[in-house]
């Protein structure tokens, strides 16, 4: 077992743009919004940055490729900028690269920034993307809602859950996130919704309705990381440090063998176990104060509670309906509104999740501040349930 990353790297500053349909802003403007806040929060000048990692997914409708879009937008001082792309988990990957660079001693201070400009396509939903020359010749012209909706059909079959009951449980997931998002001034959607509204919404991909789907948003988020000793020397207190950064990636087993039953996300379970090990967490249900998970669709969040071992397998429906993951529940989830309401600018989402944990752990989350969280977990999933990249990261107060 590797030494791990626990407490070797701290957050020096973070920033996050307003998410939403940002008709007013180009990707460059969004990047600058997040960068300005992060740099002010860190209290450093551009000359102190040693390297940058840049996450964006849909380059063809956003920034274009490579590291240059970030360097040019922010007029960085010719430092290395590395483009990172790993589906919806790209933001977490950019963080991991920056953190590892600092932990390795190759950099003192590094920045990870993610941005996505999705609303310049002319249509709703995620932009169409290309998948090489072979896959389109046999694979369905798949869309994210139908890929994730299949979790619901397989979950129902695996656990013998009645369709109406599961529909109500996933509606609760969205009602909760809307209630949380209503308290977040940077969120894409800041309006509470009723269970009835969610249940009656038009179907997008059976059984998922409109309110079961996350927002398709523009936005950017940035994190500046450094060693704890440097952070202290810069006058920082109440440091938030990294406890675990784990990524697990599918190798085709789920999609090709007949062994996976489709009712859970295989990589999430693997990444979660590794992350708890790395962070020294033995009782996640007691030790994790809060989570920001990849609720691209309501069913994903419900299943993720089981895959992160925060619910017993098969008990997700009951726990969700009990309010276990509501703002007042035992482990609040998506206190910022999550992908559902804060929004989902793909390349930025992993960093946005971290942003909320950072604010909450430092007691700076305003109207939605939780009571004394000490350990937070982000779960950032790219791809689809049957084939994906899953990142599970754990951060906490220094010494926690």
């Amino acid at each position, binding site marked *: 077992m590797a030494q791990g990353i626990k407490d070797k790297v701290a957050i020096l500053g973070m920033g996050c743009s307003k998410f939403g349909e940002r008709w007013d802003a180009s990707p460059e403007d969004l990047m600058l919004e997040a960068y300005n806040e992060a740099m002010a929060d860190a209290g450093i000048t551009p000359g102190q940055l040693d390297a940058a990692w840049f996450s964006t997914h849909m380059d063809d409708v956003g920034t274009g490729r490579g590291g240059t879009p970030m360097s040019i937008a922010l007029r960085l001082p010719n430092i290395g900028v590395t483009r990172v792309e790993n589906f919806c988990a790209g933001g977490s990957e950019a963080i991991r690269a920056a953190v590892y660079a600092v932990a390795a001693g190759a950099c003192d201070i590094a920045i990870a920034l993610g941005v996505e400009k999705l609303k310049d396509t002319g249509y709703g939903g995620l932009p169409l993307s290309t998948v090489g020359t072979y896959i389109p010749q046999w694979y369905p012209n798949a869309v994210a809602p139908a890929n994730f909706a299949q979790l619901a*059909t397989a979950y129902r079959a695996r656990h013998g859950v009645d369709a109406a009951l599961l529909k109500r449980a996933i509606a609760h997931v969205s009602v909760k996130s809307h209630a949380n998002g209503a308290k977040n001034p940077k969120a894409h959607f800041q309006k509470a919704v009723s269970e009835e509204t969610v249940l009656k919404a038009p179907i997008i991909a059976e059984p998922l309705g409109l309110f079961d789907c996350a927002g398709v948003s523009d936005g950017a988020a940035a994190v500046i990381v450094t060693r704890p000793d440097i952070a202290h020397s810069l006058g920082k207190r109440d440091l938030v440090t990294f406890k675990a950064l784990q990524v697990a990636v599918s190798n085709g087993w789920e999609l090709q063998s007949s062994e996976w039953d489709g009712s859970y996300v295989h990589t999430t379970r693997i990444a979660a176990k590794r992350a708890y090990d790395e962070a020294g967490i033995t009782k996640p249900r007691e030790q994790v104060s809060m989570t920001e998970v990849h609720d691209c669709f309501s069913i994903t969040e419900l299943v993720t509670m089981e895959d992160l071992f925060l619910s017993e397998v098969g008990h997700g429906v009951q726990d969700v309906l009990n309010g276990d993951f509501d703002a007042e529940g035992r482990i609040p989830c998506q206190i910022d509104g999550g992908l559902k309401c804060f929004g989902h600018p793909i390349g930025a989402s992993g960093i946005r999740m971290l942003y909320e944990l950072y604010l909450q752990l430092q007691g700076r989350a305003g109207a939605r501040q939780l009571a004394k969280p000490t350990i937070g977990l982000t779960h950032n999933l790219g791809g689809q349930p049957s084939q994906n990249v899953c990142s599970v990261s754990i951060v906490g107060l220094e010494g926690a």
Partner: protein
Amino acid sequence: MIGITAYGGYVPRLRLSRQAVAQANAWYAPQFGKAKGARAMANWDEDSITMAVAAARDCLGAAPDRRRVRSLYLASDTLPFAERLNSGVVAGALTLDEDIDAIDLGGSQRAALSAVAQAVARVQSGGGDALVIAADNRKTRAGSSQELEYGDASSALLIGTDHVLAEYLGGGTLSVDFVDHFRASGEEVDYHWEERWVRDEGISKLAPRAIEAALKQASVPAAKIDHFIFPCAFAKMDAQLAKACGIRPEAVVDMLTEQVGDSGLPHGLLVLAHLLERARPGQYILLAQFGSGAQALVFRVTDAIDSFKPARGVSGWIARGSEEHSYTKFLSFKGQLAFERGMRGEQDKKTALSTAWRHRSALMGLVAGKCEVTGSVHFPPSRMSYDQGKPLQDTQRPYKLADRPAKVLSWSAETLSYHPAPPHHYGQIDFEGGGRILMDFTDLDVGEVSAGTAMEMVFRIKDTDERRGFTRYFWKATPARAAAANAPE
């Protein structure tokens, strides 16, 4: 003895109600108000190639070894490609050997009979079993009589010498440029001359010459014919022709007009395949078709007739129809009504031909890779197996999935993306004995599938590249319920 050693057919699931068409067009074409029955209607993802594959599979059955087929004749007047061997696509989907002779034929309504004659000659010269497939997916003008009369279908016969079900006794042909209708290259719809002239001057005078020649070569008197098949959209033309040729009136075979419609070039073989399901040993069959002349073939049913059953059979396909009442759906599927697609419908569907060739076995034949060490099945096949923690290399051998039972693991039906027949159904399919594919579903209604539903594979259009005029094909899953309801005993 040379003759038919296997037979099959295919009729698409959708059956367009003729009343629905008549009512939709009543303001314009009130003369069709009394139209009865339904006509077969190809789904949006079917064309003459996919229907040819379906008929051939009905004929050949699920046997994995198709090496006995040494040649393939594909007859159609609506082949999707003018250049690219259409029968080559069919051969790939059927996983026939690469060293067979595959030939496209067309140009007249009797081209399927020409193909049978060619196949017989090949078998006679020791060329091995010949597979004859006929298919048509014709377009018509809205408000025309052809729109109501035509139907989409396909048929297939295997010609050989072992276990002959119907012996070929002889044939007659007449090739003349009698133009009852025509369609220029690049045009979509036939142009027809007056029916009375075609009846009196064409069919009545030309068809008997081919029929008489066939009967003479077969040494069978007309009065001994038990079944006379003569596809024609004109009312009672077959009965008139029978009378003129001395064939008993009761020998005239029903043309499936009410259930299928006139499928055109494949119709003679389709009706023959339907007839063979109930034909008795010793019966004589005369099959004739008209077009740029006429052609006739004579068969005698053998004692082996009951030893064969097609996978589903024409009667099975007819029984599994789903009546369709949407005339606009018909027009849309025929490419004659351009619905708004939204921007999601703008995605480029260019096909990388080099990629397609490299993966032809998987794409055309649905051939997976089975690890000869662990038995695990991989689609698409790969050099490395997925076996967790112990991936083996270069252990996979070709393993066909197309005819294996399968069921749904997970599914969804989405309305977000552009799809010609929304909602777009797809999901994960698990094959009995191993193998899993996330694939499109077709020929189903909302609510028809759930986890565990039994499915079967069909070869269909995957995407159409309208910019460049290329069609790519792949396999889709469809509920197997109809198979269970009509499975041969």
